[in-house]
């Protein structure tokens, strides 16, 4: 009898611990956005907007299908500005699983430079895309400036640290 009772307690404990690590400690994608000043030179210039999969078309109509087919759960986005000049947008797509994030990342082209960021990442002159777990992050600058690649990388590292 004691044997079964102990097993029950053990299973209950496992369930509670799993729930705590899986839910309680999981960070929200909308929290992944560094505040103004958290990264040197970067200012967060808009509120974070969150779109559920069903509403993603309101943000990226036409692009939404590829994310939905890859299992997007929600997308959070915010605008940034570097040194008051360079405008950029950070999109954090929360996918159902890591496979979905990988699927989107793999649609990138061969002219991208692989970077050490999250589980995998790629950098272009004006954009960075990387995945970490079930998150897929895309950061895009609206101008090509000499300091854009380095500035974007710094911002990307800060986002990655908050995921």
């Amino acid at each position, binding site marked *: 009898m004691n044997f079964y009772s102990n097993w029950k307690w053990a299973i209950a404990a496992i369930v509670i611990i799993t729930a705590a690590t899986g839910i309680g400690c999981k960070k929200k994608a909308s929290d992944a956005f560094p505040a103004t000043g958290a990264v040197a030179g970067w200012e967060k210039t808009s509120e974070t907007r969150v779109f559920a999969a069903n509403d993603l*078309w309101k943000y*990226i*109509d*036409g*692009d*939404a*299908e*590829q994310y939905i087919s890859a299992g997007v759960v929600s997308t959070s986005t915010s605008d940034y500005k570097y040194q008051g000049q360079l*405008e950029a*947008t950070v999109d954090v797509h929360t996918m159902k699983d890591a496979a979905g994030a990988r699927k989107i990342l793999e649609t990138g*082209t061969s*002219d*991208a430079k692989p970077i050490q960021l999250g589980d995998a990442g790629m950098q*272009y*002159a*004006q*954009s960075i895309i990387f995945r970490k777990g079930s998150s897929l992050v895309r950061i*895009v*600058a*609206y101008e*090509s400036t000499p300091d854009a690649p380095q500035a974007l990388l710094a911002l990307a590292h800060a986002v990655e640290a908050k995921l």
Partner: protein
Amino acid sequence: MNVRIAMKSRRDFLKTAATGALVLGSQSALGLAGRLDPHTESGKSKVVIARDAALHGAGAQLDEKRVLALLDRAIAAYTGLDKPVEAWQRIVPVGKVIGLKTNGLGGKGISTHLALVLAICERLQQAGIKPGEIVVWDRNARDLEACGLTINTDPSRIRCYGSDIAGFEDQPQKFGTANVKLSKILTRECAMVIGLPILKDHGGAGVTFAMKNMYGVVERPQDLHGGGCNPGVADLNCIPVIREKVRFTIGDAMTSVYQGGPGFHPEHLWYPNALVVGEDRVALDYTAWQMIERKRAEVGMPTLEAAGHPPRYIATAADQNHRLGVNDPQHIHHMEI
């Protein structure tokens, strides 16, 4: 000319619009046909591609001062009239409300250029259109702001607002698979609409240009995205009020994305430095498709067909059920200037 002014609340706007709606609605007398001939003497559909290689200078900055001259060349070539005022008077009916349907869906970086909107507004006014008779519009404020525009609903000036302010008709319109609620800006405000799309690759449709721009006039465009937007694009453009009112396109091909669209993908940005002008929306989209294919070939990318998203809606739009225009290059007269 000023399209920048403080935004009124939606309630204020609706209050103002309520009294004018019936009057404006009566302006929607369909059919401005005969003002322009969309065909050449040989019966081919005319499409003008006007280019200026110096449009984007160092640092990929648009030289905005050159846009008006490029527009004038394009319109002169299309109409055969060298004087811009005369040419524009052949295009638009004076005394009616003219809508300019921009495309800001892709966000900053790949939206209809402000310089083009301003150049058209300038010529419209010189042709006799009053500022209050010009409405620059799109889905919502965000899309318009992506073009660099500022919301204005003051009827004494050039107006600029989205369907998020004006609202949509309660009664859906239907053609084929399209069963849509249309923007009141299209149905009630405008007598004629000039489409100002921006040339882009589109991950679903293949290409987005003249006809696909109409997804921005309905309440739920996502309902039309199935099957690579085919036959959604063609069906939508067959809805009478779209077919009749959206009669002219000045396509912004000054900047484009040849892959990854319709969003902004700077890694696939390119500068065709062109305006693509015409009335035959199918011929325009066929032309846009070929421009995207040529660029993709140039950079070693597969065709849209090979990439899995060919723009099949273009042929559908030309078929016997739709008859929106021609997609046969033998029947399109391209005027490259």
